[in-house]
């Protein structure tokens, strides 16, 4: 019989406070097959691991059970320790007595007996565990980055610079994202375009980066190291291989379409580039606004294009790519002003959002950097900024803090003051949050030296009165309500994930949290990885964050990809499904239940086999198999039966 060692962790007081760990060890020692049992305060620490290694040798143990936290956290830690002491890693099992016991119970007596029961169950499993070898899997050393904002650009550049190929997919016709819309950036007031466009150009020219703009992900299959991706290259109705970006077509186009890039403060033709510094600098035709597509007449762009790049017959194309890792950096958008009923729902003139104000401040914007209000083009002298417009409002809008608004609103007020010296900016806020290098100093300067009035209170109502937009707020610091007849109101609307994110995560099979932002594998220790291997996340798609944080996260995600690509091959967990070929009745139920497309019918053998590289070991096919042909390694029917018996208190 196997000699099993049981090691019971206190986890400081996390387990020991609720579970009598010494008794768990004593009871474990009485179980069949258990040759040694011991408790220790921090089993994952080096002395704890050393204890496990020593006892494996001293006590000639064939298998070990670590009764501690979730296997998600430390299974690999202890399997490595067991391997160092000469055991096969699959002879090391975790009995989870923290997340599934001590953390969720308060009655010490009952929690202790439950912990003993959990250990007993795992002892039954361990007795029948086979020694396994990891399955080697090859890696395609090419990355896919989804999203061409600053996060995607940075990640793509970092991976490309280390010598690996990258495909950078962007939904719009140009990379650049929201950062291209910004005027100047806090707290140093560098011009956003000046620091971004060189990176856009670098990404466009990099020999290792293949730009696929105006493209969307259609389908993703495969697994870490070996993904297959189907990408839709949307019809631009312009042959980009011919187009030289002269811009004549855009000049001549008679259509007028509100510019999404300029937050509808300006118009462009139906054939357009979103902004002059676009990369690639190639136009697309907006089919819904093009006169030719609507009425069958016009084709003016085609007539003026001397090189014949206009192609009204163009259709969406699909390309298949193979990549080894995928970074999702799909960014954010902001809560529409139309959603904010008390702030006019978009119907009160001269109430705009922060991104629109960025366009008004931008030297390349619709007013060439002059602050002019949309209704009549006059320069506003009284300007009100409203923070937390939809953020920190769990009852009606978003419960979270959008994190960047305190800083960008301060920047807005400051830049306004620099342009309109006799104007007065007011900022309504709930709290001012300036956690970041140089941020608090930036805010103090704005408040002390620039004459910006900060008013502590949430604005209740915004309405039009003549040519003024009246703001009703309060100042809790004086205990008085405040009324301001403003010329322009700027709302710091909540940051929300891009609306396309929900659809994309279904294709990628990665997770999002309650507010639709991408979930990280661990909030502190694995912040740029998705829980599904091979998927990485970066930027505001993961949660509200500013540019420095986004860039740091993008580089971190790139680093993870580079580390993955630096290996010769990957190792797949062998604890997956296998088929007893003599028993398989080829009913193919397993194929229909497999969520990973890992089961396929083998014509030659006449049975259904397991694609080991795709199998995630979920057990669905094992449960569905009518004739018991499919079994899970180290979770065989007999193991599960004995585990169930043990958990019900039987021998």
């Amino acid at each position, binding site marked *: 019989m196997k000699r099993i060692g049981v090691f019971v962790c206190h986890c400081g007081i996390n387990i020991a406070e609720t579970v009598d760990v010494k008794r768990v060890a004593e009871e474990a020692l009485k179980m069949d097959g258990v040759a040694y049992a011991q408790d220790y305060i921090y089993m994952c620490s080096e002395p704890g691991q050393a204890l496990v290694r020593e006892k494996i040798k001293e006590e000639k143990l064939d298998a070990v059970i670590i009764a501690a936290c979730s296997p998600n956290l430390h299974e690999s830690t202890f399997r490595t320790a067991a391997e160092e002491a000469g055991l096969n890693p699959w002879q090391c099992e975790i009995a989870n007595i923290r997340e599934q016991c001590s953390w969720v119970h308060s009655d010490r007596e009952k929690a202790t007996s439950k912990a003993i029961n959990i250990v007993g169950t795992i002892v039954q499993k361990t007795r029948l565990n086979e020694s396994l070898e990891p399955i080697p899997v090859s890696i395609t050393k090419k990355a896919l980055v989804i999203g061409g904002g600053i996060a995607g650009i940075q990640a793509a550049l970092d991976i490309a610079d280390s010598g690996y190929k990258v495909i950078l997919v962007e939904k719009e016709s140009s990379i650049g994202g929201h950062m291209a819309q910004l005027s100047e950036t806090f707290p140093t007031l560098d011009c956003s375009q000046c620091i971004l466009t060189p990176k856009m150009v670098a990404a466009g020219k990099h020999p290792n980066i293949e730009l696929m703009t105006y493209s969307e992900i259609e389908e993703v299959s495969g697994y870490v190291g070996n993904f297959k991706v189907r990408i839709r290259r949307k019809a631009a109705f312009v042959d980009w291989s011919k187009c030289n970006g002269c811009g004549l077509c855009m000049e001549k186009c008679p259509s007028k379409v509100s510019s999404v890039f300029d937050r509808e403060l300006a118009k462009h033709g139906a054939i357009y580039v979103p902004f002059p510094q676009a990369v690639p600098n190639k136009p697309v035709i907006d089919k819904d606004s093009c006169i030719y597509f609507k009425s069958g007449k016009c084709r003016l762009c085609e007539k003026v294009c001397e090189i014949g790049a206009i192609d009204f017959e163009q259709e969406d194309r699909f390309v298949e790519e193979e990549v080894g890792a995928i970074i999702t950096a799909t960014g954010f958008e902001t809560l529409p002003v139309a959603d904010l009923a008390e702030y006019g729902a978009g119907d009160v003139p001269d109430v705009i959002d922060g991104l629109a104000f960025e366009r008004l401040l931008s030297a390349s914007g619709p007013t060439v950097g002059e602050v002019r209000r949309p209704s009549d083009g006059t320069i506003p*002298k*009284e300007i009100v900024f409203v923070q937390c417009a939809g953020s920190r409002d769990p009852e009606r809008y978003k419960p979270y803090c959008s994190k960047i608004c305190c800083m960008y609103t301060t920047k807005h007020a400051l830049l306004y003051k620099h342009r309109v010296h*006799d*104007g*007065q900016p*007011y900022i309504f806020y709930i709290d001012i949050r300036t956690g970041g290098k140089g941020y608090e100093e930036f805010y*103090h300067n704005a*408040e*002390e*030296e620039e*004459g910006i*009035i900060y008013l*502590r209170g949430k604005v209740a109502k915004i309405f039009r009165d003549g040519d003024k937009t009246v703001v*009703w707020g309060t*100042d809790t*610091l*004086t*205990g*008085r*309500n*405040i*009324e*301001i*007849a403003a010329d322009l109101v700027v709302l710091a609307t909540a940051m929300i994930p891009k609306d396309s994110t929900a659809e994309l995560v279904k294709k990628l099979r990665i997770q999002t949290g309650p507010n639709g932002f991408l979930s990280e594998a661990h909030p502190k220790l694995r912040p740029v990885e998705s829980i599904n291997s091979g998927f990485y996340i970066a930027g505001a798609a993961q949660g509200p964050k500013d540019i420095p944080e986004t860039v740091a996260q993008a580089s971190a995600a790139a680093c993870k990809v580079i580390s993955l690509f630096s290996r010769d091959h990957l190792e797949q967990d062998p604890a997956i499904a296998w088929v007893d070929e003599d028993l398989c009745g080829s009913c193919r139920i397993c194929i229909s239940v497999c969520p990973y497309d890992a089961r396929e019918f083998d014509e030659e053998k006449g049975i259904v086999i397991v694609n080991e590289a795709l199998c995630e070991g979920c057990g669905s096919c094992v449960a569905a198999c009518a004739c018991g042909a499919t079994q899970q390694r180290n979770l065989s029917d007999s193991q599960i039966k004995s585990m169930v018996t043990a958990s019900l208190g039987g021998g």
Partner: protein
Amino acid sequence: MSENTGLAPPKSPPIRLTREIVNAGFKQRVNELSGQHMDACYQCGNCSSGCPLAQEMDILPSRVMRLVQLGQSDDIINGGTIWICASCFQCTVRCPKGIDIQAVMDALRQIAMEEGVDHFGPDQISPELAASVPQPGLVGVYRKLAT
């Protein structure tokens, strides 16, 4: 001084802020007279929490600072706080932004006197009262009035 029971909401109309109110007159005058910079106050409240006479005041020192920032002079000039202030300098030494709040109080008293608001003029002190008040108290009062 109003009776504040803490039960009823303040019976005051909203402050209608304009750039003229914020920038004209009052705040600038306080800055000039005190040599302090009112916008430096970030409303931490340390001056109020350390003030030994706060319990006697109708407006706490930090709120006096706030009202000046918004150009609101009436409540301060007509209120009791600036006269109850003992010029003990507790607020000045505690202020994390280095504002000499005692100097601000001096400036406010001066503005109150300029505007003819005389809460405790020498002519109001009857000979009987003068005889019963300790001398240092009277000296203190005159010092305040003379600033």
